[in-house]
């Protein structure tokens, strides 16, 4: 088992709001913090305002959600005030998720948002449904390394890189982020998917296809976290289908130092509290003193 640097800002509470969920405004982020999130990640912010794709942008399937929001965001110029608003109202760490079409764009957005003093950055190189952004970048390890290094160069707070599972080998991309100086990788963004309305033949999403999230993808995320943990020295933040404390413990045993929760917010706003208290109960029932004792535990078994 590899000893990892601890995840900084080290969350006392390892249950984090994932990007793209309730992250459009400072108020919604603050609300999630009040509801028990250990940290909150903003909606992904880019260099220019984007309205996103036309609706439907998100539908609930039997066992998850399919979405193609299309990176709607008001750009950093407008979003600085949302981060400031959140920072003024909660001491919970605020992680700014950012995207751009190239290295300069990432650097620009990061620098500009820094004025609002976010507690960290998450680089979105993994959105599966925005041409020229996200996963278009995130499957190119050279580009991921370059972007990560460039952002790390100009930023003092931790930089996380969120990875796409829609690649042949996620570990290659994770290693590129690590070489670039990332403080952690976040695994995984949504899985490419599509749904068709058989009554009309129309793809349901306005963008035709999108990203699958929720319960359906948990086993996929667990495998990615497991592989990344085995190969990287930096911490892994696990995300993908976590909806209860058992899911979170599974992700942690696979190698996650913290988990992000997204789709499950649709069940209840109390999901952060119930997951984090469930983890605590699990730890004490099994006589562990901290979560560190079970991070990557599965790698020792079998």
């Amino acid at each position, binding site marked *: 088992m590899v000893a990892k640097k601890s995840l900084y800002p080290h969350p006392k509470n390892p249950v984090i709001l994932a990007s*793209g*969920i*309730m*992250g*459009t*405004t*400072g*108020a*919604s*982020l*603050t*609300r*999630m913090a009040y509801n028990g999130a250990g940290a909150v990640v903003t*909606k992904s912010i880019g260099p220019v*305002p*984007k*309205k*996103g794709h*036309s*609706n*439907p*942008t*998100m*539908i*609930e*399937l039997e066992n998850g*959600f399919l*979405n193609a*929001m299309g990176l*709607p*965001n*008001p*750009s950093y110029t*407008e*979003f600085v005030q949302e981060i400031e*608003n959140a920072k003024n*109202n909660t001491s919970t760490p605020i992680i700014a998720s950012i995207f751009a079409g190239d290295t300069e764009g990432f650097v620009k957005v990061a620098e500009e948002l820094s004025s609002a003093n976010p507690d960290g950055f998450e680089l979105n190189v993994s959105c599966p449904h925005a041409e020229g952004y996200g996963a278009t970048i995130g499957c190119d390890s050279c580009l991921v390394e370059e972007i990560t290094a460039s952002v790390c160069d100009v930023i003092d707070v931790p930089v996380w890189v969120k990875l796409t599972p829609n690649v042949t080998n996620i570990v290659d991309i994770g290693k590129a982020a690590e070489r670039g100086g990332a403080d952690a990788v976040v695994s995984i963004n949504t899985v490419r998917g599509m*749904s068709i*309305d058989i*009554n*009309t033949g*129309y793809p*349901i999403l*306005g963008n035709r296809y999108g990203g699958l999230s929720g319960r359906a993808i948990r086993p996929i995320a667990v495998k990615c976290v497991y592989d990344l943990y085995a190969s990287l020295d930096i911490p892994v933040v696990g995300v993908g289908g976590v909806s209860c404390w058992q899911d979170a413990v599974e992700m942690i045993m696979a190698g996650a130092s913290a988990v992000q929760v997204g*789709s499950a*917010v*649709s069940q209840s706003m109390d999901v952060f509290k119930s997951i984090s208290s469930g983890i605590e109960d699990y730890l004490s029932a099994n006589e562990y003193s901290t979560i560190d004792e079970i991070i990557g535990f599965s790698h020792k078994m079998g």
Partner: protein
Amino acid sequence: MYPLNTRLIDIVQESPSTKTFFFDRYFDANAGQFLMVWVHGVDEIPMTLSYNSGITVQKVGDATSRLFELEKGDTIGLRGPFGNGFTLPEKSDKILLVAGGLGAAPLAPLAEYSFKNGVDVTTILGARSSTELIFGERFSSAGDLYITTDDGTSGTCGFVTDILTNLNLSDYDRIYTCGPEVMLRCIFNMLQDEKYVLEKTEFNLHRYFKCGIGVCGACCIDPKGLRVCKDGPVFKGTELIDSEFGEYKRDASGKRVKI
């Protein structure tokens, strides 16, 4: 849920700019709840239910324009009902409805429900002009009706607030309002000083939605981050105190725009 493919079985022109689309599917919904209406190939938009099997639409954008081209027998995709509707009145209640323009859509079924259940209903129905008044008969069949038009072509010349200001609001157990946010804000301001009135008044808001199911956060309102689509679209007046309501909203990109 997947959009339910739904056939239009009747289309009624309610006013020069509004049509009601009736469909072959019954939604067991409370007045104030909404559907996400997928106009295939164009967009999906939130629409309040004006009947259990119908929505009343004003032509304002791409999706509604396409909807206006549809004919009986065509289909649309429907998801819902979503959100929280109005708190239903109790049998002995006396209620006041204040509807402006298309704001009559969720209040008309509430008026009918209330009348059927022995509730005393008074409605103030406003519109720009006589031809734009909708559901006048549905309201007048349910109780007293005050009409206002901006141009005086029907009822009192003026705004719904002109009537409201002359009523004794302590007479009513519940007050329900829906209409343009500017109008709602005027009403809110009138009631703001009397907290007990605000407490019993419900505002049905209309905002831009993306997911419609409370996940994406695009419709959150400051400062509490309440989601119009899931925590609303109906809010008690007291929930809206010191909020962005009537001041600004967010566009599709999340940028604040003045109301």
